[in-house]
């Protein structure tokens, strides 16, 4: 059990090293001649106006929020699915009710116009 996670711990190191080491190496090998014009922010040849962190559509935030609601609740379903054999019919039905609540959530969001891209 612990050995399984030891592999993942070591793999994390390797996985950070594999893309990281070439990037550092290329930084050492490649030329480095910065000048003010080169390091300007790219915007099709024009100089940028104002802040980059502009006000954004509230729609993006609402979608992220809807996702959060769903994702948090979906994680609870995994143990239910694994323990399916040891559940009686009422255990299964309570899981189904849980999914139905999710479904009603989705319908409510739909009805409220959260899912419209305007």
């Amino acid at each position: 059990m612990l050995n399984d996670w030891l592999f993942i711990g070591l793999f994390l190191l390797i996985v950070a090293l594999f893309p990281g080491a070439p990037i550092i190496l290329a930084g050492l090998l490649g030329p480095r001649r910065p000048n003010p014009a080169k390091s300007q922010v790219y915007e099709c040849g024009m100089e940028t106006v104002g802040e980059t962190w502009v006000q954004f559509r509230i729609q993006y935030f609402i979608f992220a929020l809807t996702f959060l609601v769903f994702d948090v609740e979906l994680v609870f379903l995994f143990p239910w699915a694994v323990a399916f054999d040891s559940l009686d019919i009422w255990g299964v039905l309570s899981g189904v009710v849980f999914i139905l609540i999710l479904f009603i959530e989705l319908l409510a969001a739909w009805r409220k116009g959260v899912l419209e891209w305007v």
Partner: protein
Amino acid sequence: MGFLSDPINFIAGWLESIMLGFGWSETIVTTVLKFLGAGAVGTFGFALVIFTIWLERKLYARIQDRLGPNRVGPWGIFQTFPDMIKIFTKEYITPDGADKVIYNLAPIISVSAVLLIWAVIPFAPTVIGTDVNVGVLYVVAVGAMGTLSIIMAGFSSNNKYAMLGAFRAVAQMVSYEVPMVLALLVPVLLGRTMGINSLVASQEVWYIVVAPIAAFIFFTSSMAETGRAPFDLLEAESELVAGYQTEYSGLKFGMFYVGEFLHAFTISALTATLFLGGWRGPGSETFPILGIVYFFIKTFLMYFVVAWIRISLPRLRIDQMLNFNWKFLTPLALVLLIATALLEKVLGMVLPGLNLVETAVPWVRAAAHLVVNLLLLWGVFSALRGYQVKGRKIVGNPRPVAVAPEPPASVIS
């Protein structure tokens, strides 16, 4: 266990006996072996990208009636190496006002998030990085990190195009995670396990037959997760320059490129593992090397489909994409999950009473699930047809059309 039937475990056992012969303790030997295994999986994943980049460029070209790379080596198979050398010698340009730490971390995370998934993919019954008992949950958790890297890249670049790409990533990639996780629940429910190797072992009948809708939903939404055409809104060239990677140059850009190709290959491997039976095939349990062969045949088949879709389809609009996700895939996945759970319980109560032959049980189960899936699909499509007919009415007044203004009277006279 001979070398020919299971070379990887043979080598591992040989190394273990050598190291134990040095008089090293059990713990150190295990750690070293795990480290070597992790290094092997990582190297393999990276080496694979070099091949798949060539493969996809060649496929792209052939489908568009071009020749594609054909100069370096036979059929241009070594084309990726000169490209790599060239990109190594490029200068890094960091834009003014970029958030340096996050800016430099993003390309690394984009590759490592995908590479981490390879730790739990079984190549053969005995050849697997690590068989954790929560493999599916691990895949979901690690997969979400890829989205994070894109958001990091967009936010730290101090560039408005990159920023817009990151916004779109929030709307698109994050949304498509919901049907993906829902579709992953179906094989977990059918196999009663979250370990990926045991999920493969439980597929007496491939899950693409038992749950075709789940396979479709998983495949589509994980394709959207890769952020490639037709779902490449976050780097749409004609709208956002290059989206989140606008300000990246040299190998930092190269790492995003590698991450993208590796992600495409990884989702085909995952689909092959979870729905096409992974290493399952005749003789794969006695000769694990056959399992590796079957796994790669299925994976490359899926990879061909991924590349084919990327090459053939135009980019979707963002509202079409979000509608497809929230109003089609997610409700369908929820209904499918309910139907699968109820049917599975009913079958669990009915099947033992029928006194079937041992080998027939999975097939009967698969047939019942297939029938329910097809019924569901039929219901969905007839509902959609009704929606389509109803949706064609004209709403509101006709929009005003520009009319040429009357010339002023003074000009005429």
